């Protein structure tokens, strides 16, 4: 693992204090490999390494009695800095009923996450209303219906012949009638390069004015994480990210990549298939996971 490799590089330095250029080069090489193996995006790694290199050549390492430890500390600080930015609680202020919009690629976990969010909101005293807007995937509306039944949360009876924007408007009226205060809207998975479907999301957003537009992304996503994140952010100005399937052994470099290119916070992580398996995102835990 990285900290062991870095310790090896610096272990010959006891008493000598100063790091040689070779030590630093070798350390940077190991850090780069570790990040790439963890699926952090190539360009993000390049930029991050430059930040780390500047600091590693600076006073704090030069004057340190344990320069090796200092480099390790710099790496973990830089990662945590990249991932710690942004407000991580849900924005739940505004005129009721509020809306939370879930978007993302096919299969990333949106429908399941919609259920998890609704469950979380109800536990925190809200009255959520689940709104299925995926009229394309076979049995998608049924899937959200079944999820709603499991956690006793009402689900809008979406008509698959309506357009998604109209389903949302009808759902808003229905929510007011039943006294629900938050709509959790589940959209169909789509490619960020599908212009028509990305425009559809923008129409949904313009009609429903969500307080949160959350990108649901798979923790095992590789280099493509930056492409999808940039595009979804460009079109929707997302307010946050939910990283699903985090309980697996994917290193999760996608987390770093997505935050680096969007400057938006990861608000939650999915840690299982059950509807209570959602937890807040902890940047320091993530950075030690990425570093391996």
């Amino acid at each position, binding site marked *: 693992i990285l900290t062991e490799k870095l310790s090896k590089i610096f272990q010959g330095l006891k008493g000598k204090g100063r790091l040689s250029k070779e030590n630093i080069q070798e350390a940077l090489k190991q850090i780069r490999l570790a990040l790439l193996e963890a699926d952090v995006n190539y360009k993000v790694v390049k930029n991050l390494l430059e930040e780390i290199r500047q600091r590693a050549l600076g006073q704090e390492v030069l004057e340190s009695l344990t320069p090796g430890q200092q480099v390790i500390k710099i790496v973990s600080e830089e990662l945590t800095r990249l991932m710690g930015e942004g407000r991580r609680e849900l924005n739940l202020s505004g005129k009721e009923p509020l809306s939370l919009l879930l978007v993302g690629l096919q299969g990333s976990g949106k429908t399941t996450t919609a259920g998890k969010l609704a469950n979380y909101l109800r536990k925190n005293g809200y009255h959520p209303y689940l709104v299925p807007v995926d009229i394309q995937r076979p*049995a998608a509306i049924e899937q959200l219906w079944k999820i709603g039944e499991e956690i006793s949360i009402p689900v809008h009876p979406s008509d698959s012949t309506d357009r998604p924007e109209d389903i949302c408007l009808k759902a808003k009226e229905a929510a007011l009638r039943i006294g629900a205060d938050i709509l959790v809207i589940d959209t169909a998975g789509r*490619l960020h390069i599908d212009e028509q479907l990305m425009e559809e999301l923008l129409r949904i957003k313009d009609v429903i004015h969500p307080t949160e537009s959350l990108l649901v992304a798979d923790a095992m996503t*590789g280099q493509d994480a930056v492409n999808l994140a940039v595009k979804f952010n460009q079109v929707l100005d997302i307010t946050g990210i939910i990283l699903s399937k985090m309980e697996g052994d994917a290193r999760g470099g996608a987390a770093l990549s997505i935050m680096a290119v969007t400057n938006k916070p990861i608000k939650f992580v999915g840690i299982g298939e059950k509807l209570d398996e959602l937890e807040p995102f902890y940047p320091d835990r993530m950075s030690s996971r990425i570093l391996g």
Partner: protein
Amino acid sequence: LSGKKAVDSSLLEELEEILFTSDIGVEITEQLIERLQRRVDRKSLDNPEQLKTILKEEMISFLEAGQELSAVNEIPDKARNIVEVIMFVGVNGVGKTTTIAKVAHYFQAQGQKVMLVAADTFRAAAIEQLQIWGDRVGAEVISQKRGADPAAVVFDAISAAKARKMDKLFIDTAGRLHTKLNLMEELKKVQRVANQQLSGAPHQVTLVLDATTGQNAIAQAQVFAQSLGVTDIILTKLDGTAKGGVVIAISQRLHIPISFICTGEGLEDFEIFNPREFVEAIFD
């Protein structure tokens, strides 16, 4: 005499970027660059097109090494009139259920009689999802209630497939992370029970991988292969911007052939895997 013995470093970086951003991974990229350095002759050191050509050839040879074991183009042993049982496995959300519909459609178009088994008895509306696909494709779907033992559903399905003289039986299983040992055991049990009902079943275990997945796909392939024996891989979602380069590492390390690729959500978005086209797409 040109004093140069190695590829110009900024050119190398350009090539590395293509490889890394395609999810080819550190180890394979290092191997490919090393082979490139060895194979390239002096006059081509500065020629990006020639370098790319060499790289492509090396990548194709890595993939072809895995393809040698491909059973996709084998004619099934029709003389014995045994239904061929194919089990689809993989982690959550990769496209197993949708891919089964495409594979069923593909073989039906060749005149084969296919049947589907809804052995994902766990996830909400998983059975309904497969039933809708079964209707669209015109294939019967064997299912029980949600929560039933998947092995029991498979047991029933195999006897139905035998009785109705089906050519192919496709088993849809629930998505599961390879790190969940109890869920991997569940799959092993399905495999055992299938074999009890029809010796040799399941004849194929198809691992479905998502092209947007990074290096974790290697761990997925390793664990599923170790646990069940994987006969082939289907790579989905290549219609996005992800290149799926991680399959080159899987091919080289585990020698599992890639049978098909999927390029969309419709029944026709399905092609036989072609190593050359796959590698060309990485450089597009």
